[in-house]
């Protein structure tokens, strides 16, 4: 017997490295697969060695600095092929990607990332997904950390979109589960003129749709803050930008003092928006066209520009207004909405609610007035906010997954029946008690272990009879008693409501159409009381009541049956005892009954295999039928089936019990 071959790591690695290089040159993974198969050793050992080899090749390529992005990509493709062939472990492509992205500058990372994006379907496939998703997540987060949100907005967006496509919606790491706010998003604005920053920064950012200025901007030398050359409304400026703080952290609104400030500033700002109507300037439309056709992309800036000199221009800009008004709507939705993570002190009082209502109307009106297409925009906003409600409730439920589980099919029936608990437990034993495992529970449960029957028992009948309820009213209706109107119990609204409910359940008069117009509930009740009085048994002292109204002869008693009749015996559930008796009688002929009970052939076979004893089989058949039918497993239906199967005698037994 030859000693077990020791796996030589270094040799194997060298072989793999060489074959990797040849694979890269020839653009095929065959050499690698051949090498893999030739080397003797354990699968796992070989795989890990190949992983190492691939990483080493990559490292050499990176260190060389001459390699192009395409070379890295071909190596990674090779590793993917390797995974599909089963020669390297599933995490290797991700490790390689991570290595590459860590070592390359951002512009090359861009190209690598395009590769990642294109292969999203590969990553989502079964063999890769579980192994790689954490690596991918970490890799993307590292990239995001390196990127600047305002400079590389598009790249950041691509990464986010990729993550969104890769992970399911309910992936917890991507969700803001606690509904937290980005408290770091502070809007800075000038508190005094010396801090004015306009004129110091190179003015690259342009606002879309800049309207014709109303003021003149003095020529400013870049680098020195120029003296202000247009009148600036600091009052409005400060109040306006202070509002952004409330949008950043809405929880402040629940405090009284902050709320008052918010209220005041909002009212002023919205009054300004209201009086300062925007024109649908044709000139600005042309400018927009020019901006777009000049090859400029739609400019996006992450934060508001808050220089006071821009205030006038910003107020004349429709997009800016839309931003602010939309912020209001989002804030209001949060304040009014049910969010699981709001603390219990975050409740709005009535005044606040009514202010929010009014202001919401005003905001929508202002939105509609903003050209162009104000109406369309406002309806769209409304619809979007409505759909937000759905997402909100989804979050409140803890973000359940959207993947529906396949409905369970018939298969599990076999184990349940095999596992049928001893009859004692289910109340089928001789005691007919259900043991709950605890004495007290057992006692309680067995008071009546059929819930439906318990609910229908006489003791739970809480609805009073017409006589009892209206006794007092009838007495009062008797003119001989001379009860004054205000003391009549029919004028009590509480009584009236209950009276109506009772009448609808018990009295056929309720459904009789009459020609009389009743001006109020009290009048209606009085007339009903009088009608009832006439019908009730004559031992009440009010039989002498003069009514003066025409009698509606009614055969209405037959219209309404008492609703608490006990169910006829035939509609009762089949009891265990009955089932035992029927089974005993059926014996070996249970199969005939089985077809009447709509048992499938498969089920019949199962019953046969389950038990040798025919009585038992019959019993099992009935149990199975009862399980399937549930509440429909009535004596009636069993009798019908028995009769149809040709067992009238057994049916009779059931009839007798």
């Amino acid at each position, binding site marked *: 017997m030859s000693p077990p071959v020791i796996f030589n790591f270094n040799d194997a690695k060298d072989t793999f490295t060489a074959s990797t290089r040849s694979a890269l040159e020839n653009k095929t993974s065959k050499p690698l697969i051949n090498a893999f198969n030739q080397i003797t050793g354990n699968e796992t050992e070989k795989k890990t060695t190949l992983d190492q080899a691939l990483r080493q090749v990559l490292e050499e390529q990176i260190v060389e600095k001459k390699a192009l992005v395409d070379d890295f990509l071909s190596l990674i493709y090779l590793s993917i092929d390797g995974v599909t062939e089963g020669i390297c472990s599933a995490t290797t492509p991700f490790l390689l990607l991570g290595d590459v992205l860590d070592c390359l500058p951002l512009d090359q990372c861009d190209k690598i990332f395009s590769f990642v994006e294109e292969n999203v379907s590969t990553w989502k496939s079964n063999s890769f997904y579980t192994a790689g998703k954490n690596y991918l997540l970490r890799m993307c987060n590292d990239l995001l950390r390196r990127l600047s949100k305002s400079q590389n907005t598009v790249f950041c967006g691509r990464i986010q979109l990729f993550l969104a496509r890769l992970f399911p919606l309910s992936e917890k790491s991507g969700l803001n589960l606690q509904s937290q706010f980005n408290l770091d998003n502070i809007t800075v604005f000038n508190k005094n003129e010396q801090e004015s920053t306009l004129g110091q920064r190179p003015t690259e950012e342009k606002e879309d749709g800049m309207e014709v200025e109303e*003021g003149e901007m003095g020529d400013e030398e870049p680098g020195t803050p120029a003296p202000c*050359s247009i009148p600036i*409304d600091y*009052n409005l400026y400060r109040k306006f930008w202070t509002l952004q703080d409330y949008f950043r952290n809405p929880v402040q609104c629940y405090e009284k003092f902050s709320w008052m400030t918010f209220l005041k500033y909002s009212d002023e700002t919205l009054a300004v928006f209201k009086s*300062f109507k925007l024109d649908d300037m044709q000139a600005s439309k042309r400018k927009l066209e020019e901006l777009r056709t000049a090859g400029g992309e739609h400019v996006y800036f992450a934060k508001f520009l808050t220089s006071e000199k821009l205030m006038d221009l910003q107020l004349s800009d429709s997009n800016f207004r839309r931003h602010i008004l939309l912020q209001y709507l989002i804030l209001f939705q949060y304040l009014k909405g049910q969010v699981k993570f709001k603390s219990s002190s975050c409740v709005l009082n009535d005044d606040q609610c009514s202010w929010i209502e009014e202001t919401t109307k005003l905001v929508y009106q202002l939105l509609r007035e903003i050209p162009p297409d104000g109406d369309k925009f406002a309806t769209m906003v409304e619809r979007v906010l409505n759909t937000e409600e759905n997402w909100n409730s989804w979050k409140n439920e803890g973000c359940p997954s959207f993947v529906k589980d396949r409905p369970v099919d018939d298969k599990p029936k076999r184990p349940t029946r095999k596992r049928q608990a001893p009859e004692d437990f289910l109340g089928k034993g001789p005691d007919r008690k259900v043991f709950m495992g605890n004495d007290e529970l057992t006692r309680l449960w067995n008071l009546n272990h059929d819930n439906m029957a318990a609910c229908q028992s006489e003791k739970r009948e809480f609805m009073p009879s017409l006589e009892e309820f209206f006794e007092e009213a009838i007495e009062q209706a008797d003119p001989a008693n001379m009860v004054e109107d205000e003391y009549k119990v029919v004028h009590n609204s509480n009584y009236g409501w209950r009276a109506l409910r009772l009448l609808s359940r018990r009295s056929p008069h309720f459904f009789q159409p009459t020609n009389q117009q009743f001006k109020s509930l009290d009048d209606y009740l009085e007339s009903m009381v009088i009608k009832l009085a006439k019908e009730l048994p004559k031992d009440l002292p009010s039989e002498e009541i003069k009514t003066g109204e025409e009698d509606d002869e009614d055969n209405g008693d037959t219209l309404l049956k008492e609703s608490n009749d006990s169910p006829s015996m035939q509609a009762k559930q089949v009891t265990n005892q009955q089932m035992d008796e029927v089974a005993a009688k059926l014996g070996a002929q249970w199969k005939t009954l089985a077809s009447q009970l709509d048992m499938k052939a498969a089920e019949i076979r199962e019953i046969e295999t389950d038990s040798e004893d025919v009585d038992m089989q019959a019993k099992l058949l009935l149990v199975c039928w009862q399980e399937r039918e549930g509440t429909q497993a009535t004596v009636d239906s069993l009798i019908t089936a028995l009769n149809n199967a040709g067992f009238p005698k057994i049916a009779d037994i059931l009839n007798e019990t």
Partner: protein
Amino acid sequence: MGPVEHLHMSVFSQSFSPCGRFLAAGNNYGEIAVFSLSSALSPDATDMSRKPILTFTAHEGPVFSLLSTDSHLLSAGNGEISAWTWAELIKRNTKAVWTRRPNYKSSLEIPEINAMTINPTENSLVIGGGDNNLHIMDLESGVFKSVLQGHTDYIHCLSVRERESEILSGGEDGAVRIWDCRTGQSVHCIEVYKYEDCARPQYGKWISCLTTDSDWMVLCGGGPYLSLWHLRSLSPTSIFPLSGCQRQATFYQDMILSVGEGQFVSHCLLGGEVKAQIPCTPHSLNTLALNLNSTENRVLTVGGSSHQIDVFANLSYRSFSLAF
């Protein structure tokens, strides 16, 4: 000045200082208040900055008209004109430099002076008032050079066309007269109420305000609608559908701003439509002034039947109010 007086105060006239940093306003109690615009517009303005830096009684009766020359503030009320230098006023020295009175025919009744305007080519002051005549005073000498007669009822408003050296005056008699400065004769007389488009007979025929822009003239009455007239052809080109009486109007860029009855400032386009009506504090406005003397304090101020004067830094909304 107690709260009751404040309640009944009306601002009738305004004028900006030549440097543009101060505003003088005259009210119906005969007082003139001087406000510092630069401090009211500064970033660290407080409520105190919106109060006048100086208030003094200028006349016995209401101050109907205020005017600024390069160095002086002229105010007119009950029949007399007083002048102060701005420099002294800023130093809170309220001593008038001179006070003069035109020669009125009868010395029994002293007619009020409703309007004043300066004719820069001749350096003269034109005054119109209750005695149905225009008086022209030479600013250097202080002598009343001439009297222009022609109106049959008192004069409400005056304006000067510099290029043609003409004076326009509108009065209670519904007539707008165009006078030639040198000859002193009434060159044209437009009786606005006779034009059907403009006339609102239910309001009478009097002309309350008048302003020119060389070729164009905007006038409005108590009587006729606010309308834009072409002066060469002497015909109305646009008529603005503003209700009520407009008491002051001015041309600004390509718009006409006008104030009058109604709690708003109307922005009208030359074509005849009312572009916007910006709400403001006083319920009814008497005076409107644009500060063109300074770029950083270039604001619009309006005053009327309230002790507050609204300041508009951006013409489209009210920024804040100065208060007497």
